[in-house]
């Protein structure tokens, strides 16, 4: 399928899903769907750097929080409209991604992963000490009274935004994967030295993939303050975002755009169900256990599993 066709289909599905939400009376359903969609964006974005390129990013929460806090800042400073906040948060997180991309110049593998984790904590400390956006106390966001496009409630608007973001992230991830860029990234993942020697512009590709990955993660965070209507640093920088955005692609499969989607839908839904039926601490435990179980028993994820099963039948 050509990328343009895929994009048309993805956005058509997104619009249909948004239109269908008008008849959903239950707010909880929308907010659960919002969370799952947010994880689709995060997992897809993480996979562009982690899965395609092979650089493990432990700092997903930092990008996510940068998106969220740029919204808080714009809300306080300018009362900017929603699309402006989404675009701005995406750009700021993209810049951070570019900076992280430059880290790959000096650090490979494990050192890179630890550096991203360190970066997340440094940013966290800055936000905690930055009083304008609420500091450690957090900040309240007042939602606009009237909802545009004749949508019933504000959650409908956020849900619609998140559906579009998820479609956008998937289109980007698929376009990268199927293009010459994706093959270059795969070459870097398999052997960076050999890729460089064969004329793959490794630095430019790594910068690109880190920037896109960071920007998409930030984009997922831009609507978080509006969704929660209150934001504090430890919620935005929560380690569970980092764990989830690693666990989901690992569980789904990291070599294609479909893997993070499968992983996010599966793990996200399980978490929502467990959160309602048992408790929220248990759902984090389940993520951890599934992560360890998959990484030890099915290292190529669900996609790898299906491929192996197909090959055996053929």
């Amino acid at each position, binding site marked *: 399928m050509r990328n343009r066709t895929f994009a048309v289909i993805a956005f058509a599905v997104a619009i249909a899903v948004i239109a269908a939400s008008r008849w959903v009376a239950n707010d909880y359903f929308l907010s659960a769907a919002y969370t799952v969609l947010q994880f689709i964006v995060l997992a897809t974005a993480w996979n562009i750097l982690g899965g395609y390129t092979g650089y493990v990013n432990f700092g997903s929460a930092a990008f996510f929080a940068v998106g969220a806090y740029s919204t808080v800042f714009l809300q306080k400073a300018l009362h900017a409209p929603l699309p402006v906040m989404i675009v701005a948060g995406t750009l700021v997180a993209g810049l951070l991604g570019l900076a992280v991309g430059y880290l790959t110049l000096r650090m490979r593998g494990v050192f890179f992963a*630890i550096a991203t984790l360190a*970066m997340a904590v*440094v940013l966290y400390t800055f936000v905690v*000490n930055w009083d304008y956006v609420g500091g450690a106390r957090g900040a309240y966001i007042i939602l606009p009274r009237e909802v545009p496009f004749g949508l019933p409630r504000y959650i409908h608007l956020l849900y619609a935004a998140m559906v579009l973001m998820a479609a956008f992230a998937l289109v980007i991830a698929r376009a990268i994967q199927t293009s010459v860029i994706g093959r270059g990234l795969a070459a870097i993942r398999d052997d960076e030295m050999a890729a460089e020697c064969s004329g793959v512009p490794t630095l430019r590709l790594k910068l690109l993939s880190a920037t896109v990955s960071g920007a998409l993660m930030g984009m997922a965070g831009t609507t978080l303050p509006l969704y929660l209507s209150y934001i504090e640093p430890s919620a935005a920088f929560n380690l569970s975002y980092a764990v989830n955005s690693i666990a989901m692609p690992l569980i789904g499969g990291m070599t294609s755009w479909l893997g993070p989607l499968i992983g996010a839908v599966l793990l996200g839904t399980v978490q929502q169900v467990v959160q309602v039926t048992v408790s929220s601490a248990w759902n984090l435990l389940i993520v951890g256990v599934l*992560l360890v179980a998959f*990484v030890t028993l099915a*290292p190529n994820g669900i996609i790898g599993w299906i491929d192996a099963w197909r090959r055996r039948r053929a």
Partner: protein
Amino acid sequence: MEFPTALILNAIVAGLLLGGFYAAVSVGISISFGMLDVVNIAHPGFIILGSYIAYIVHERLGVDPILVSIVLSPLFFALGMVIYRIYYLCFERRGQESLRGLAFFFGILFITEVTLVLVFGVDYRLVETSYTSTTLRLGPVDFPLRLVVPFAVSIAMVVGLQIFLARTFFGRAVLAVAQDQLALRLMAIDPVRVKEYAFALSIATAGVAGAFLIVIQPVQPSIGREYIGLVFAVCVLGGMGSIWGTLLGAFILGLAESFTSTFFGPSWAPAVSFGTLLLALAFKPSGLLGR
């Protein structure tokens, strides 16, 4: 304004005492990450586990937490052996340790943390012993025993480990694994066995460091994360796999953190360890006393 000599002296003493504790926290990472190339990002999780075990035994039986941790360190040793076995079978043998091994330890960290939350809740726990509220004074300088006792035991442990690694046959085998595994095989020594014991040793130090932690400050399951940056910063700063380097790195970070807390406020302290780590990784990845 009067020059704050007393303040600076106190910051130096507190920094050095804290550094001694940091050495105990990081020496395990120096062994597992620095020498064995096992990126045990879950190390802080085992430290917190050690804190809670020391806490329970202290609550139930009233035994000193540090004594408890030393007596129970064989348990942690066994736990370390089991974890290394799984890690070896699932990742190292297949040559997938870099990405998936990392995700594995990240998952383990998360599981320990959430399990502790489920069992003990998110309240801060603290132990009160005979020495935790006593402070010795030497002129204007304070020596809180709460820090002095862990400092002393920790220095003893780190120096003991260095002597053990440098002088005994097994210790030299560990150092040899760090340099050339194939050569070890040619000497008819099983490198996997050596790594297993060495990794177990590193987890045992985590258990003991956990007891120090709960003597020094109240403990809550998720504070383990704050130590991830610290342990790797100390390990990288001092030089991978060098125990003296770990000691040096720990003192540097302890002093840096104590000065930031004194002059800028404790909320900036985490930025110091992680910031140092970033700088160390970017500019001197081989560390101060690297091999």
